[in-house]
């Protein structure tokens, strides 16, 4: 241990001074060299989230329509959700290759479960009194959905979507780190393996900032949707 610490202390490559990192950060922003990788990662994220959200909401809604289906499928989904799905990444790489397709598929799978589970919770546990009252006042199926079920379920679904978005983002950056051809995670690994510490820290800071901005944005959208 001691000898390794000594080696690290002598070797300037294993860490970097903040001024150099700041300089490189500015460099990255000014030259716009991040645009290609950012575009790849964001495209993957958008596709994965679109698939996860549409499949999750549709599956969740269909399941939530009967108490029996909820009791069959909800524990099943919750059980699968508790397995770390990142384990299946090698399989996804085997099926979909090293390109964006495997990241989209993995992100969509991981994002699907929180969205589906929250949609089930949202539609499945609407207060019976509200439904019966609307029915007795002569609401049609469509009106019941539009004015009773949807407003009651929307806040919970939105929370599920935020959770799905966050885990999809994490899994996409993670799978880019492990095996990929392009993207922000790939860029960080590339710099780390070339021992280019200052630009690597700059990119890490960049990704953390992007993640923070995206998460804040999604939380703000969620809060907005809940208010209405």
């Amino acid at each position, binding site marked *: 241990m001691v000898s*390794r610490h000594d080696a*690290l202390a002598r070797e300037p490559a*294993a860490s970097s001074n903040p001024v150099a990192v700041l300089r490189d950060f500015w460099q990255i922003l000014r030259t716009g060299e991040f645009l290609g990788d950012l575009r790849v990662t964001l495209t993957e994220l958008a596709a994965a989230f679109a698939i996860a959200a549409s499949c999750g909401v549709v599956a969740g809604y269909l399941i939530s329509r009967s108490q*029996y289906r909820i*009791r*069959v*499928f909800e*524990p*099943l989904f919750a*059980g699968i959700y*508790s*397995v*770390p799905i*990142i*384990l*299946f*990444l*090698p*399989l996804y*790489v*085997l*099926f979909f290759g090293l390109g964006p397709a495997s990241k989209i598929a993995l992100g969509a799978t991981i994002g699907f479960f929180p969205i589906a589970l929250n949609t089930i919770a949202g539609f499945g546990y609407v207060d019976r009194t509200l439904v019966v009252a609307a029915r007795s006042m002569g609401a049609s199926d469509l009106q019941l959905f539009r004015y009773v079920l949807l407003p009651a379920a929307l806040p919970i679904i939105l929370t599920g979507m935020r959770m799905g978005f966050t885990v999809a*983002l*994490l899994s996409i*950056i*993670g799978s880019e*780190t*492990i095996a990929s051809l392009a993207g922000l*995670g790939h860029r*960080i*690994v590339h710099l*780390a*393996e070339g021992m280019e510490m200052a630009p*690597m820290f700059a990119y*890490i800071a960049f*990704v*953390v900032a992007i*993640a*923070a901005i995206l*998460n804040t944005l999604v939380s703000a959208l969620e809060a907005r949707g809940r208010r209405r």
Partner: protein
Amino acid sequence: MTLARLWRALRRPWVARIGVIILLLCLWEVAARWWVDPMFLSAPSRVFASLPALFETRGVPAALRVTFWELAVAFVLSVAIGLAIGLALGLQPFARKSFMPIILLLYGTPQVTILPLFILYFGIGPASKIAFGVSHGFFPIIMTIVAGVQNIKPILLTSARAMGASRWQILRYVVFPHMIPSFFAGMRLAMTGVLLGVLLAELYVSTAGIGHFTTLFTQNFDPTRLLGLISVLAAMAIVLNEIVRRGELHFSRWHTE
């Protein structure tokens, strides 16, 4: 009559749930046998039949053992560190107000981005996996412990102090019993985090753990053994999660409100 009873038995949710799982396995079996190239997908029956062969593959049992140890050590370290920091922050309002925002911020950042750093500092052996697992595991424990300590009714603390309890007695007889439900909820989240962290780091780069073999099987187009290994790991994850969940149910039973 008997037919109706049989139908009722089949309609039970857990029977139907197993039915769904069997149906999916059958679909997978059919797809693997007749539609998909055997280079990419292998039928569940073959995966199951090859499990003994997997365990006889040189290095696989040792790799599973290494990964299990990484998980165990990372979990224990997460609990110890999380408990110490959580109690320190929870019991002292000044420390909580100063440091809690920093911890929340760190908890919110995606730690995958700094995975290469962990490898750089801790090497490609088990140490980096343990460190990365701990970095995922100890935040939820801090969160739940701080929340748990704060939720103790002040009247309990005041009355304990009024009856002349020492600092240690307050910790032992008031704080700890009230912390247990949230502590176990935190342990469950920590187990999820540790599994994610250790497995991510394993898949990224590995010399002795299972990551080495998942890479090997993927590159050799050997889906039978890859699926077998992944199934074994998934089973391990389910068992570990279930142990912690059972613990949570068991120890939070007294605390019903």
